[in-house]
C-alpha cells in the first residue's frame, strides 16, 4: 500500500513542477485570462528563442509576462502592448511579423519560389510536348533520362 502511494506521489511530481514553473497571475475574469494566453502565445521570449512568452520559464519571460499583464490591466490594447515590446526588443519578439517592405521576402518568398517552380515545370512540359506531339510512348525504355 505504501509503495503504491509512493508511486502515485512520483507520478504527480511532474505536475507539481509544471504548476510551479509559471506563476499564476491574478486575472479579473476568464476573458482576460484567455486574452492574455493568446497574446503571450504570439510573443517570443528573447532569451530562449524558440519558446513563446507563455511557455518560457526564463526570468526575462516571467518579467515580460508581468509587463504584458500590467499593461492589460492598465487598459492597453494588444497592438499597444506589442508596440511596447517591439520598441525594446525589435520585431524579433513577434511570432507573426507585420507585412511591410522589410518582411516581404519572408511573407511572399515561399509563394515566389512556388511560382518559379511552377513556371519551370510548365516550360519543361510544353517543350517536351512540342518535341513529341504524337508519340506518347517514351523513347527511353527506362523512362528515366536523368
Amino acid at each position, binding site marked *: 500500500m505504501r509503495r503504491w502511494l509512493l508511486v502515485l506521489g512520483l507520478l504527480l511530481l511532474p505536475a507539481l513542477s509544471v504548476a510551479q514553473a509559471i506563476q499564476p497571475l491574478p486575472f479579473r475574469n476568464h476573458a482576460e485570462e484567455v486574452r492574455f494566453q493568446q497574446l503571450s502565445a504570439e510573443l517570443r521570449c528573447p532569451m530562449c*528563442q524558440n519558446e513563446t512568452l507563455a511557455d518560457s520559464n526564463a526570468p526575462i519571460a516571467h*518579467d515580460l509576462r508581468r*509587463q504584458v499583464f500590467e499593461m492589460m490591466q492598465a487598459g492597453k490594447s494588444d497592438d499597444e502592448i506589442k508596440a511596447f515590446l517591439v520598441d*525594446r526588443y*525589435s520585431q524579433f519578439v513577434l511570432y507573426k511579423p507585420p507585412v511591410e517592405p522589410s518582411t516581404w521576402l519572408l511573407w511572399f518568398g515561399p509563394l515566389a519560389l512556388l511560382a518559379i517552380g511552377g513556371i519551370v515545370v510548365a516550360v519543361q512540359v510544353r517543350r517536351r510536348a512540342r518535341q513529341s506531339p504524337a508519340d506518347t510512348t517514351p523513347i527511353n525504355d527506362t523512362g528515366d533520362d536523368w
Partner: protein
Amino acid sequence: MSRLLPLFGFLVLVGLFGFGIWWNTQHDQHEIVSPLIDKPAPAFDLPVLDDAGRTVTKASLLGKPYFLNVFASWCIECVHEHPLLMTDVKQLGLPLVGFNYKDDPQAATAWLAEHGNPFDVIVADREGRSGIDFGVYAAPETFLIDAKGVIRYKRIGPITPEVIDKEIRPALAALAKETP
C-alpha cells in the same frame, strides 16, 4: 543542356548551404540587434546600490559619454567578463556605470567585494523594469551612451579583447570625431 539542370540545381543548394554555414560563423544567432541603437536611452531613476537613499537618473549622467554595464551576482558570464572591466574597459577612460540587474543588494555587494568593483557608480534595478526599457534580456550587456544620452553601441554578452578592439574602440573613435 537540360541534362545539366539537376546539377545546376544541386550546385545552387550547395551554395545556399555553404552561405548558411559561413553566415552562422559571422553572427551570433542568439543576438537580437537592439532597436534602441542611435535612439535616446530610456529615462530611468534608480537607487544607488550601496546607498539606497540616493538615486541616479538618466538626466544626472548627461554631459559626458559613459558605459552602462548590466551585471548581476547570479550571472555566470559576468564573472568571466569582470577582469576585463577592471582593466581594459576602465583604461578606455569613460565613466563605468554598473547596472545591477534583478539582484539581491547584499549578494551584489558580496560579489563585488570578491571580484573587485570597477564601477564609478552602481544603480540597482531589483525588479528588472528599467531593464525591460533598455531591452535587456541576457546579462552581461554593455551600452555606450553618449553625452546627449543617445545609445551608440550595445554589446550583448561578455566583453572580450576582440570586442574592445573591433567594436568598442571604433565606436569611441566615432564619438571623439563628433565632439572635438
